[in-house]
């Protein structure tokens, strides 16, 4: 029997994977992937809890997140292509213009 705990553990594992990706990766594209993993880990959690309580609002929230993630990726990829055209690289360390 798959219980709520299993879903939440899966969500946690996915989230950790995403975080490690965000921290370790230097490639911008990979960073976007990691962000998607983070968002979807949360989606899994929302959907599971929503089902468990029989409350639809969690699943509706997931839809919103998916929609926002899609638009975010569209904008982000556009910027990424632009940056690649300009500098010829998508390495994160090349983006150091805003020094404190």
């Amino acid at each position, binding site marked *: 029997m798959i219980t709520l705990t299993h879903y939440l553990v899966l969500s946690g594992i996915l989230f950790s994977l995403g975080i490690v990706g965000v*921290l370790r990766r230097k490639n911008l594209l990979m960073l976007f992937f990691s962000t998607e993993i983070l968002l979807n880990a949360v989606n899994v959690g929302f959907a599971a809890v929503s089902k468990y309580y029989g409350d639809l609002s969690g699943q509706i929230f997931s839809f919103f997140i998916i929609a926002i993630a899609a638009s975010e990726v569209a904008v982000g990829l556009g910027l990424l292509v632009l940056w690649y055209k300009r500098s010829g690289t998508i390495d*994160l*360390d090349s*983006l150091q213009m*805003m*020094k*404190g």
Partner: protein
Amino acid sequence: MEKYLFVALFAPIVGSLFSLLFTARKKNVITALVTSGLLLFSFVSSLTLLFAVHDGLVLHVKLMDWISAGSLNLPFGFIVDNVSVIMMVTVTLVSSVVNIYSMGYMAHDKGYNRFFTYISAFVFSMLILVMSDNFVGLFIGWEGVGLCSYLLIGFWYEKESASWAGNEAFIMNRVADLGMLMGLFLIYWQFGTFSYEEVFAHVGSVNVGVVTTIGLLLFIGAMGKSAQFPFHTWLADAMEGPTPVSALIHAATMVTAGVYLVIRASDLFMLVPEVGHIIATLGTFVAVFAASMALVNRDLKRIIAYSTLSQLGYMFVAAGLGAYWIALFHLMTHAFFKSLLFLGAGNIMHAMDDELDIKKMGGLFGAMPYTAILMAVASVALCGVYPFAGFFSKDAILAAAFNGGNFYIWFALFIGAGMTAFYSFRLIMLVFFGDKVYKKLGFHPHETYPFVLWALLPLGILSTVAGFFEKPFEEFVTKVLDKYEFSMAHSTELGLIFLTSGFVILVIVATIYKYAKGGFSKQLETMPLFLLLKNQYYIPKLYEVAIFKPYYALSRFAWKQIDVRIIDFSVDMIAKILYRSGQQSRKMQSGNLSDMLRWMVVGIVILLAIAIFYRPMV
């Protein structure tokens, strides 16, 4: 009639504010003219009020509510009655004369405009002091005149001795004012009000011990302002200020504020004769003590300053013995002749290029006869020779002392009168007669501007004739103050008058004779008594050793050890911690996106931890 009160009170402050606009500018005669005009205006209003009060008017005006907090309700109230109107007329008259005189005296000073600002501000404060209908208003004026006195003593602030003297006067007055303040607190605690009227109405129903304490505390304040022992040293040092200031503030008006306080609170002091006795004893002591220091001093202004101290002692004797109207009378006549004496001294100083040593003068009569005559009139009035003003007021004080059965007070004052005669005529003889020492020293004295001499004339006339107003004055003032009954026989009184006058005239003649013959021998100046007097009984030295130096050491300790090591250190510590932590955390802002992401994660973890583990108290 109220408009006269407001004109008298506010004309000086208008003049002060007007000339304040010019303080940063070059000398402008308009400041002097405007302030003099307004002071005269104030004087005329006061005089009008005097006549109105004589016809039975008592003005009591509440200008506005000033402080209203809890049960404390303090109106800005003014009262013009038989006592305060006398003070108003005296103050505005002397200040008008001094202001006009200063136009000549300060003519070449670079602080010309500033000087008139201060003088008018002083007159305003003094009027607040005398006209207020409650103790707090009196205290405000009290502090106001103290401030103006400080500013004017230190008028030539670039001179170190002047700024030192200003500080000395201010600080000594603060010390004494603490006593006064505590007296005021005690009054409020006991009576729940500061108004004279209500306090004096209920003063009989309060515990005598408390009234005694209030009286003593108020008298401590009066001692500071009137420079009575042991607060007397500031007055002699205050002579560092310009001479018109010495005449107005440190002879005629401000220093008499202490006497005025005792007179104003006479209803309170009357209930506690022990305090009155202390006041009279201290006054007697100061009268003789200060006169003895004047005997040997060679500084023109200091001699007159000690004489002021001595005369203040006389006033306190009268006030302490319950003869309040006599104290007020002597206060008034003294204001006339002492300011005249000081202003004459100012003329001499100008003629002698600010030289003050009377042994370097001599024979000035030929060069400045009018000043000489005016000063001689003032001196005779001070000594109390018939028919000059001092004769009436001083004799009344002596008679009051004798009448009360205080023979030792009478005898001390009698000796004091002899000393007064000696030092006054020593001064006159050394300055105006004898060898012309100044010629050898290369001075070219000359008489001052004629308008200055004309300005002095009213004071000269009043010094001569004011005494004849004794009876009307008594009648006028005792409508408010208590009458003082002389119980001794008329023949005794007459005998006393002849005795005192004879003694004084004898001393005067002896002094004139002695100094005409060439004065005392140099040998006298090595006598221990002479040295004791010359060094002012070593009291300034004692204060220096016993108070200034330890206090200086204490202040230095507090500065070096407590302030620098503890307070500064801890304040600097806070700044250093912030600065260092800023320096360290700057490294976070490297501009590298993955570094920022890392920090973001750290932040999220911390926030999560707080969200999970923090449970707010319910």
